[in-house]
């Protein structure tokens, strides 16, 4: 059981030295120490992440135990590399707070506008699911944690603003999740397909090609089908598994599954 210290015994054993001299000596020692090395960081002007504080902030005993570091994997404001973003929507899909909107940014062609995430930090819970889901690693989280603004609309970070964060080259989360080895792939239920080209048109990585397939021979007494004889073929190594093709397919003929 825990050690119980009896005050009376302590007072008798150590005498006045235990109750008066020692505390005063400790206080005086701490006072002198604080003159040499103040333990206060003058926050807005000095910051914990400054290199001079790295591993230098010590607790009262003077023992350095690494307190005061902002580790690289801290989840702060996002940084977005617009140039590598492929508009796959995965960040917006995986957001539990629905704080990510995909907004159009200049750079795409008129038929395929380029869309990048716009994050409302009023809703964001900094869970990091969006950066975990990003297949290209262009949406990451930086160590920046200062966000105070005076207007609500300033909490909404446009893609351009997050690109500015990216260009500031703040430390970013170094741990990226590896894609699972045997991921589900997108499969085609061929008899349902009408060859409408929607999946291939909207695929962010252009990994779907529409290939001609041989025309099936109608059974005797049956009219030849009117559909266009093209079928999507998906390049699994390029596919980022965003599911855009599944959601645009009008016939629900694409689905998740494993190749057998």
């Amino acid at each position: 059981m825990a050690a119980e210290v009896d005050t009376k015994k302590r007072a008798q054993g150590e005498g006045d030295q235990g109750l008066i001299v020692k505390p005063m000596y400790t206080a005086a020692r701490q006072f002198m120490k604080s003159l040499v090395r103040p333990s206060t960081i003058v926050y807005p002007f000095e910051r914990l992440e400054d290199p001079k504080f790295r591993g230098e902030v010590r607790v009262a005993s003077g023992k350095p135990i690494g307190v005061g570091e902002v580790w690289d994997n801290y989840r702060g404001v996002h940084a977005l590399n617009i140039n590598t973003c492929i508009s796959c929507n995965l960040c917006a899909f995986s957001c539990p707070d629905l704080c990510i909107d995909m907004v159009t940014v200049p750079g795409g062609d008129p038929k395929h506008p380029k869309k990048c995430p716009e994050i409302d930090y009023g809703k964001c819970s900094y869970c990091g699911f969006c950066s975990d889901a990003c297949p290209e690693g262009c949406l990451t989280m930086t160590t920046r944690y200062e966000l105070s603004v005076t207007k609500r609309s300033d909490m909404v970070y446009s893609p351009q603003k997050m690109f500015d964060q990216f260009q500031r080259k703040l430390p970013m989360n170094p741990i990226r999740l590896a894609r699972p080895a045997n991921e589900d792939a997108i499969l085609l239920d061929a008899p349902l397909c009408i060859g409408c080209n929607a999946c291939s048109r909207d695929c962010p990585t252009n990994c779907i090609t529409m290939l001609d397939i041989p025309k099936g021979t109608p059974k005797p007494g049956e009219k030849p089908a009117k559909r266009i004889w093209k079928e999507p073929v998906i390049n699994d190594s390029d596919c980022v598994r965003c599911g855009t093709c599944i959601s645009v397919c009008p016939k629900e003929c694409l689905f998740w599954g494993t190749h057998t």
Partner: protein
Amino acid sequence: MSEMWINMGPQHPMTHGLWNLRVRIDGERILDVDPEMGYLHRGIEKISEDRHYNEVITLMDRTCYVAGIAWEHLYVQAAEKALGIAPTERSDWIRMMSEEFQRLASHIMWYAAFVQDLGLMSPFLYGMRDRDLILDLFQSYTGGRLTYEYMRVGGVRNDVPEGFTHRAREVLDWLEPRFVEYDRLCMGSDIFRRRCDDLGVLKANDCVRLGVTGPMLRSAGSKRDLRKDRPYSRYSQVEFDVATADSADVTGRYLVRMEEMRQSVRILRQVLDWLDSHPGPVLADHLPRWLGAPYAPIGREAYLLKRNYPKGVGLSAIEEPHGEACAYVVNEGGEHPYRVKFRSPVFANLSAAHHYLVGYHVADIPPIMGSVDVCVGEVDR
């Protein structure tokens, strides 16, 4: 009219959060109490029904803001049972380590807040200083200081970084002598003893009858600890003792928590040794993509229901820093849990307030309620 009702709360330094204790007093005597909860209700159980299995984890950190990772552990265990997924061995040990670190942080936070309730300022500063070391450790491998979002169904997000076990041992080396310091500050103080001895007595059979668990039950002499009685995770593979006290009063709860911290350090040393010598994967293979992050949701519930996904229910119970918490997850197929239900230990501990408050003085309420270790986030959910 010598009797009256007074409200302690919802904004009162004693409450540690938003709840209201209505007290009927006659002069200084407490005649009746009526705890009112619900000011912090966010409907976490209902919101969970609309989230993917992994997305619920973001809510778990908000359930209890001083023991977030323990609640993550609780939910993830239940969800894994419901989905029929087993975590990897290393991730299980990392989870256990996280939970013990969280127990340390939570108990130190309790120590700081409880002693400040008694009007002693310096233990508060000692406690907050030492808790920060643990939060820094948490940040170095989860990326968050309070809201970790670290565990995933089937494992944990990432492995601990290089050099982590070394840093963790340094923190433990630093913490162990601090417990002696805490004891000298409190148990060595006459004022502390006079304010806490024989206060808020709740005997073991009353605790069991009222569903009071955790340090409150153990302070009444009962050796009930889920880590020993029904070992989950890898607790059966580590050595530790269950901390108990006999006095069933505020001092007893203090002693139990102090001893639990020592036992946590003991467990952590064994876990860190294990982690050093057993590398391995931290996330299970063959995870279905409809779990949510890091996978993309597929967006068509109807399609998922067509496929024969395994259905099931999962029940898990852990010894949370405050007591015994329980989670129940129903998987009816599809991307979202059909129903999620939590049992909060503090809710039961608070609801029994009548039995350990009546008969004492009004000035005794802060030490007694402080010794319960109230975390309103999990009471109201």
